[in-house]
């Protein structure tokens, strides 16, 4: 009897190794070649790093070059008024990495929200509507009256609020929801970039926005994914094309939650950097920049040699969980003519 039971045991063991057995019998079809290692497989490949499938809903390429200048009118005293309509929601489920679905909370339907851009001295009027199921606000960094700070004036579900302030000072700022618990509202995606240009425009350059963010998709207080512009590894499989000897101005905003620092490392060249973009004299010339939560920096750089260059968090944990990107520097002049410029609305 004991030997019969042995046979049963062996068979039951076979049952648990069956997936391997049946697969071994099939003819391998696919090759997986990444990080130098190759395997043959009959199955499916999951590779967020070398992703080549259907594009996701959010397009970091568009976001990176998209500046919202608002609806522009001129007041009697000559002041430029820029009006923005912003709606907050908290019910969307978005595919934030191939196959990963996460409940994002959004300003105007995306994470990050629109990049709000104005010139120093403009009057900014934000018509804010809360279409969410929770209270939300918009808190802008920069100078404004206390009641425009978006902290104590909680906007409940279905509520509206009009924020009004002058674009001041010049610099790279941000806005985000400031309802308690702020960490939850930010990590779900309620933030965006706010740029105030100087009256005397900066030198002409190709301008790119990078919001360094993360997603805690299983709500355990640690980020599962890191990114520049929301989608992990996006600029790895979609390198950003730029021309050599072209001045690049990168607006880098760190809105990462849970991790107290984040950083930015550029390969193949060095940048001048301007903390919060408030000064016209660079603070340094470097290829490394470390930023705390809410820190911003304007970077200016150009490439001398063509080729593929990485830029990424030098906190390698972050880069290996998505915050790794690349520039493809080309010989030709390929400044983007499709830069969306709402100034033409004037």
């Amino acid at each position, binding site marked *: 009897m004991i030997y019969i039971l042995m046979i049963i045991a062996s068979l039951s*063991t076979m049952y648990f190794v069956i997936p*391997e057995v049946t697969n071994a019998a099939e003819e391998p079809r696919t090759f997986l070649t990444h990080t130098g290692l190759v395997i043959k497989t009959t199955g499916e490949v999951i590779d967020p790093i070398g992703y080549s499938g259907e594009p996701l809903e959010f397009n970091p390429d568009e976001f990176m070059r998209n500046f919202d200048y608002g609806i522009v009118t001129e007041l009697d005293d000559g002041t430029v008024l820029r009006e923005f309509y912003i709606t907050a929601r908290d019910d969307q489920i978005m595919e934030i990495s191939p196959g990963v679905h996460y409940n994002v909370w959004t300003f105007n339907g995306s994470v990050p929200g629109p990049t709000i851009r104005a010139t120093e001295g403009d009057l900014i009027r934000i018509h804010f509507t809360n279409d969410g199921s929770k209270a939300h606000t918009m808190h802008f960094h920069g100078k404004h009256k206390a009641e425009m700070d978006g902290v104590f004036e909680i906007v409940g579900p279905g509520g509206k609020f009009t924020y009004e302030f002058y674009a001041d000072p010049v610099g790279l700022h941000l806005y985000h929801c400031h309802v308690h618990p702020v960490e939850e509202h930010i990590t779900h995606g309620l933030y965006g970039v706010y740029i105030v240009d100087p009256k005397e425009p900066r030198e002409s350059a190709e301008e790119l926005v990078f919001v360094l963010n993360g997603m805690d998709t299983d709500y355990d207080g640690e980020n599962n994914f890191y990114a520049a512009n929301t989608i992990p590894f996006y600029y790895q499989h979609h390198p950003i094309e730029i021309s050599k000897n072209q001045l690049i101005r990168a607006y880098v905003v760190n809105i990462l939650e849970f991790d107290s620092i984040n950083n930015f490392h550029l390969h193949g060249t060095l940048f001048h950097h301007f903390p919060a973009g408030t000064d016209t004299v660079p603070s340094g010339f470097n290829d490394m920049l470390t930023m705390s939560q809410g820190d911003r920096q304007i970077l200016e750089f150009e490439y001398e040699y063509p080729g593929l260059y990485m830029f990424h968090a030098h906190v390698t944990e972050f880069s290996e969980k998505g915050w790794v990107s690349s520039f493809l520097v080309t010989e030709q002049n390929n400044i983007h003519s499709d830069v969306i410029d709402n100034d033409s609305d004037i």
Partner: protein
Amino acid sequence: MIQTSKYRIVVSAVAPIILLVIMVAFLVGPGSTFLQFGVIVPEIYLEKIDFVDSEIQVTVRNTGPIDTNIVVADVNDRIQPAAIEPDNHLTRFETALVRIPYDWNEGQPYTIGLTTDDGTRFEKHVDVAFPALVPDLELIGFLGLIGVLVGIVPIMIGLLWLPFIRRLGENGLRFFLAFTIGLLLFLAADAIEESLEISQEHLSDVFNGKLLTFTCVILSFLGLYLVGNQLIKRSQFSKFSKTMTISLMIAIGIGFHNFGEGLAVGAAIGLGQVALGTFLIVGFALHNTTEGLAIAAPLSRKKGIISKLIMFGLIAGSPAIFGTWIGGFSFSPFTAIIFLSIGAGAIFQVILSLINYIRNESEIPFLNIYVISGISLGIVVMYITSIFI
């Protein structure tokens, strides 16, 4: 008339089942909206991790209430590209093999993580990365030899106590039989504990390893009780005596137990835990000599039983060989739990037979000083030898 009553019996047996099916269909059947409340989240369980050539292989099972997709694999919390066979969609209880190309280092700990489509990450930690054993003749022979050394040899050595036990008087024999009960009580407790531990560490909650343990213990006790009674009944008409039957039942019970021990040794070797493996081999070998004593004790008044004793020794010891093979080449928590708990149930049956045997042999009360001290000493000896494991 007879036809009608048969018909009635069938209807009365089947009708409640049909009603039950209708009720279940109403509750959870396709299209049913009655029980749609709460939030259903996917759950997966990483059952097994194998380290092969420049590759980490994970056997994963969907243990949740709904289908799910596996969308990200990581090693030490760093995202890695991977392949999933047959595909990344897992229906309930379906398993898949995730193959992660990775230049792992032998001897280092690794945590492997898999993320489902709702963004939840599940992980399993491996203390020591060690190349998965590939069954070849040499290794099969090696593991088999270990099985012999752990199972058969110590039991045969233990059987050599027989001449000593033969010289004992009534009370001395009673003491040794009670000593055997002590040993067996300890073994049963040990097997149940081990089984519960495996269900805790290696089996997803959905399979209810704890209840599987108790189910197997009870079923094997009842099953072997029946078999034992049949054997004893038949022994009245053959030369296969009652004491012989008890010895045989002890050997079978111990056989199951040794299968479990073999699994433990094989699994330790398979997982590359050399130190643990060595301890287990030495410890079990010491431990198992007492099992030989347990088989021999009821036979102390018999003569000319050498060949049968050897057979019993083999029945009790050889399962260790199968155990090391299965444990080393494809450790399955299910197999381990089932065999350990069958072993525990078998041992309880043996204990009951021994108690009955001691009671029937004499008129004096069962729990006398010899029996009590025998049981106590048996447990203490087993405890002390178990420290070596």
